[in-house]
């Protein structure tokens, strides 16, 4: 097989020149309103390179909106985001993706008409460069590139253990598998920051365990920084390094899982009972 392109070379974003433990992303005094609804009010926090950062909070607290701000889908009225040292308020989502921010969605947003394989391959579109003529004639660079990326995608498929559904249109898949494919698609972009919006909602324990494992592995093997929204406190407590808690658009807690779970505000607003 022609291996002009080594798939390992395609890991573009993972090495972003920021040392582990330094600030990768910083949110400064961000506020976001929709008409009269204040989704986010003056929130600041940071995400360090290489960590797993959880965002929790009651429903409607503004968690998803926060992710949307980070990847440019919403433009906050106030505040700035600093990613890899570059400060900004507004940005196009496509640019965010090119700079290495990938995400999954709360209400699954897979490409329903495409197979698992194609869905994950779309994750690599920003990394593909062959020109339209070689694509049209399906020769040389286009084929080589396709194969190289395909290899990488197959690795992800193996990693997520979804080999058997490779060629199945995702629309037919059960919810849990769709979530996994979505993760695969985000991983395929080889992001430096991975945003996960409730990756484990609607899964049973066994699947949550699998998913946790995947997240931890991605984090440790590729050094990918992860921001994660999740309502299962067990998962959050176990796998995250630091947690930020939102309520009604405000930040009410920030710290290690232990600190947060002992915070009385957090218990009142969110947990209901002290956890464990």
């Amino acid at each position, binding site marked *: *097989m022609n291996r002009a392109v080594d798939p390992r070379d395609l890991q573009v974003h993972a090495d972003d020149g920021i040392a582990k433990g330094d600030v990768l992303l910083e949110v400064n005094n961000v506020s976001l309103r929709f008409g009269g609804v204040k989704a986010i009010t003056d929130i600041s926090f940071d995400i360090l390179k290489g960590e797993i950062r959880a965002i929790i909070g009651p429903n409607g607290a503004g968690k998803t909106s926060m992710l949307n701000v980070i*990847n440019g*889908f919403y433009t906050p009225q106030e505040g700035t985001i600093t990613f890899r040292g570059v400060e900004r308020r507004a940005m*196009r*989502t*496509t640019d*965010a*993706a*090119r700079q290495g921010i*990938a*995400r999954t*969605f709360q209400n699954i*947003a*897979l*490409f*329903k*008409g*495409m197979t698992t394989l*194609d869905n994950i*391959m*779309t*994750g690599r*579109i*920003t990394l*593909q460069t*062959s020109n*339209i003529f070689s*694509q*049209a*004639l*399906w020769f040389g660079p*286009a*084929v080589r*590139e*396709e*194969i190289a990326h*395909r*290899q990488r995608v*197959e690795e992800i498929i193996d990693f997520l253990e979804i080999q058997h559904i490779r*060629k199945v249109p995702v629309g037919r898949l059960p919810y849990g598998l769709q979530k996994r494919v979505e993760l695969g*698609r985000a991983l395929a*972009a080889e992001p430096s920051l991975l945003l996960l919006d409730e990756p484990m909602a609607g899964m049973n324990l066994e699947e949550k365990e699998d998913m946790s494992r995947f997240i931890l592995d991605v984090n440790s093997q590729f050094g990918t920084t992860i921001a994660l929204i999740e309502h299962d406190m067990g998962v959050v407590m176990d796998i995250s390094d630091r947690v930020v808690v939102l309520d009604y658009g405000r930040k009410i807690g920030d710290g290690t899982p232990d600190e947060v779970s002992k915070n009385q505000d957090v218990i009142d607003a969110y947990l209901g009972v002290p956890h464990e």
Partner: protein
Amino acid sequence: MLYREAGDFKSTYVADMQTFPIRGERLLFWVFVAGCFLIVPFLINDYWEKSIIIPFLVWSMIAIGLNILTGYCGQVSLGTGGFMAVGAFACYKLTTAFPDLNIIAIIVMSGFVTAGVGMLFGLPSLRIKGFYLAVATLAAQFFLVWFFNKFGWFYNYSASGQITAPERFLFGVAVTGPNAPPWATYLLCLSFVFVFAWVARNLTRGRLGRSWMAMRDMDIAAQIMGISPFSAKLSAFAISSFYVGMGGAMFFAVYLGAAEVTEAFSIDKSFDALFMIIIGGLGSILGSFLGAAFIVVFPVLLKNIMVGWLGWSTDLAAHLEIMTVGGLIIFFLIVEPHGLAQLWRLTKEKLRLWPFPY
């Protein structure tokens, strides 16, 4: 058994990316293609050429084009007739302005001209979506037809605005004009359609195709994945129009030989093309062919049965024909909303499982 595969194991990705992964099917396909190129030219006569096969091939080309835009990229367009007109008039102007230019080059260049126009009219798609866009593309349809009808330069100031395709030769054989032998026009169209169907297949299975489909299935998610709507949508408009333009050029130069823009490229053409791809199957190259066959060949067949064999009066037959076509469209949609191509796939799947029902 035709469809028995010994497991779906492929050892290389190249093999896995093949268009026909099953060996028997691949073989069958090549036999079919060989038949089309080597045997049909000897059998074809004027009637089959002008009434069935050429229109079928030309419409297949157009349907593939529209399918790229609508089926793959999800942008419903009703401007096809207008874009066909662009192709036809580009072809006419090029042939008359450069009498020595090769007809193949002319058809391809007509495609490029149309691609440019298509991109222009594709711009609103960046903001307008769904049926709103579909209706908005009618602006292209009406405007282009008006435009070509209005300015005499396009039809070389002929008295009535008709354009007539002059005779052009390829390897010494006429391929346009009234004296072209059926096999020559047939081979010309077939080659075009074959090559560009293959190109379309390549485009749709690679990066570009995936970015189109992503746009189609969920545009916001696609953007968040880094796919720029600007380049995805506009490239779809451009390439789709490229095909439609070539189709329009062949429609005028090879099939009709003469055309008048308000009639030959009316809005009915836009609708016909859309019917084809929906009936055939959105997002399927095979579907484009099946749809074209259904819309082009089926009415002729019905007519021949009702008038030719049963001897019914022509108006009765025409009414029944259109009712039948309408009824069948609905019938097929109920049986399989994803078109004839999907029906074909499911049939194969069932055959493969046979005799086990599930």
